[in-house]
């Protein structure tokens, strides 16, 4: 196992898939000569040339649509959004074009495309640059949504996403790019879309999380362990399709659940998780499922306010204690 950063794991996935399949190309702002705004595409222009690593003007709607159009006729574009905040300009293409094409064509025209880039808040980037959009896209039938938390999952899921025959919204974490972790060697490390993973086993409460909140949940689980509480950390990895089986198995075991996510609460990922649990395993619950989310406000700039707005370890520990009736 090699130890890689999340960034390099993504880079490796892109490189391997571009080597493997000539239909795969990378397009976006600053992906080629600049080596990527977050250096995910470092070295790819040198290796694959300008035909396959394409710098675009600042025109998210346009190049997202060009990607969808290319996918409709058989290419496998990877469209990089410098951040998902900017993809709002392209959401018409993602939702109205990519997600619906197969259905409204009666199955004739699929869109094998990956839209990827960093989502969620970094540090002090304020309201327009600090948003988690998982639930927006997960709402749409026809899209798949993944949000890896570790270098290994980043690589394995990106490779799976590129090979997928449907549009995949691939949400990375700006704060995760430097995260180091072990990544299996070799070219066939694939993580299937739609499979959650227990990142820490436990018996008394399930902390459901994904992307950046996996680290939050793991830290919270450590603190809970010190308090004598045995928490399980379930990393969803894929938001849609949601791994309901894994979710239900975990909560049926622990009987208590806290969902930790970066996004806002209203109609968020956690809302779907809670719905699934109460619908399927109501009688296993010993407490209402609680959610730790971003405060219901635009992200403030001030760092103290920002910290107060974010899902964090103390809030997660407190929620876990509450569902255990320890508060």
């Amino acid at each position, binding site marked *: 196992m090699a130890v890689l950063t999340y960034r390099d794991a993504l880079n490796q996935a892109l490189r391997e898939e571009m080597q493997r399949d000539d239909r795969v*190309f990378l397009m976006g702002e600053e992906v080629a000569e600049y080596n990527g705004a977050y250096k995910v595409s470092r070295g790819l222009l040198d290796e694959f040339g300008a*035909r396959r690593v394409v710098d*675009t*003007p600042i*025109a998210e*709607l*346009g*190049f*997202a*649509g*060009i*990607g*969808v*159009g*290319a*996918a*409709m*006729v*058989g*290419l496998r574009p990877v469209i990089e959004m410098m951040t998902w905040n900017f993809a709002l300009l392209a959401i*018409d*293409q993602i939702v*109205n*074009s990519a997600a619906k*094409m*197969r*259905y*409204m*064509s*009666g*199955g*004739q*025209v*699929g869109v094998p495309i990956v839209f990827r880039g960093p989502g969620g808040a970094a540090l002090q980037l304020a309201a327009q640059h600090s948003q988690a959009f998982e639930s927006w896209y997960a709402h749409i*039938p*026809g899209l*798949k949504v993944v949000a890896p938390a570790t270098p290994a999952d980043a690589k394995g899921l990106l490779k799976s996403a590129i090979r*997928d*025959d*449907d549009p995949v919204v691939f949400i990375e974490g700006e704060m995760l790019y430097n995260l180091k972790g072990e990544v299996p060697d070799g070219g066939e490390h694939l993580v299937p879309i739609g499979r959650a993973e227990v990142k820490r086993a436990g018996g008394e409460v399930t902390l459901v999380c994904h992307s950046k909140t996996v680290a939050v949940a793991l830290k919270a689980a450590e603190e809970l362990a010190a308090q004598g509480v045995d928490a399980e950390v379930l990393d969803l990895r894929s938001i849609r399709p949601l791994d309901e089986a894994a979710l239900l198995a975990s909560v049926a075991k622990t009987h208590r659940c806290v969902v930790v996510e970066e996004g806002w609460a209203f109609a968020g990922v956690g809302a779907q998780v809670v719905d699934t649990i109460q619908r399927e395993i109501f009688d296993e619950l010993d407490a209402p499922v609680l959610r730790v989310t971003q405060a219901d406000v635009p992200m403030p700039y001030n760092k103290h306010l920002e910290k107060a707005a974010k899902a964090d370890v103390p809030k997660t520990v407190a929620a876990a204690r509450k569902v255990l009736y320890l508060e």
Partner: protein
Amino acid sequence: MTATASRGRKPAALDAETAGRLRGYLRQMMLIRHFEERAGEAYSLGLIGGFCHLYIGQEAVAVGTISALRDDDHVISAYREHGHAIARGVTPRAVMAELFGKATGSSHGKGGSMHIFDAGRGFLGGHGIVGSHIALAAGHAFASKYRGQDSLTLCFFGEAAANIGAFHETLNMAGLWKLPVVFVCENNFYGMGTALHRAAAIEELHQRAASYGMPGQAVDGQDVMAVREAMDQAAARARADGTPTLLEIRTYRYVGHSMSDAVHGTYRSKEEVEEHKRRDPIRLLAELLRERAGMPEAEVDEMEQSVKAEVQDAWDFAESSPDPDPSALYTDVYAPEA
């Protein structure tokens, strides 16, 4: 690069090949016209639901451009696309059945009037969000270039779509990267009920091509030969080195924006509609064939009977076809499991 290419044409006898080709165009235009008239009838009978935008009056644009294509080219359109589909060879049966929402429709009843697809014929929709599909067209062209092919993509949109961001973003990248697209702006002078002069800072829309480094041309859309000629030139450029073209093809719709819109209405007068009908593309072509190829009147009547039978057959087929199976509700959302 300006004015309408049909002006100044001298009435000389057509060669047999051209006359034969034009007879074909005439029949196609009559087929589209009659198809749309019957679609309007079916809509009023409740056999077609939702939105339904008819192409009556604009037939020469579809036929004049699409007739220049090869099988490996792509066609993509907006939501007034029945005529484009038929011109591309999608059968009236498949289109009518789709309008009727039947399992035998081109999208198996899941798309409807606004989403006619026939991937096998390179007909890639039928799109309902004004202007969005212009970007998709550039994507198809990007793929042709990526693969080193000289196929092109023909993209239809209305003049109102030329004001949306997707138009500008896409034409910029198409010009920048030399993507082989022929952008056909069907200027029928009204975006729903908003006249062009009330929506665009410049009304000579073809001039916008200059901003994006590509040729632009205004074309008389009621003259199918002029349309074809402009299209041939644009196609040649696209196949040669990928150069895209913006064709502003001026035409007129005789009917309302959609079935819920009166023929004329608050935004245009009856006199204006009648004035435009005097340059009806079908009548102009029939006259030309009579004058310059000696086509007898009876032949037009025969064509008329022939297209009526074809459309009646499409109607009967659509009406007698089954609805989609209820299980179809959940198919085609994602690719089938491998």
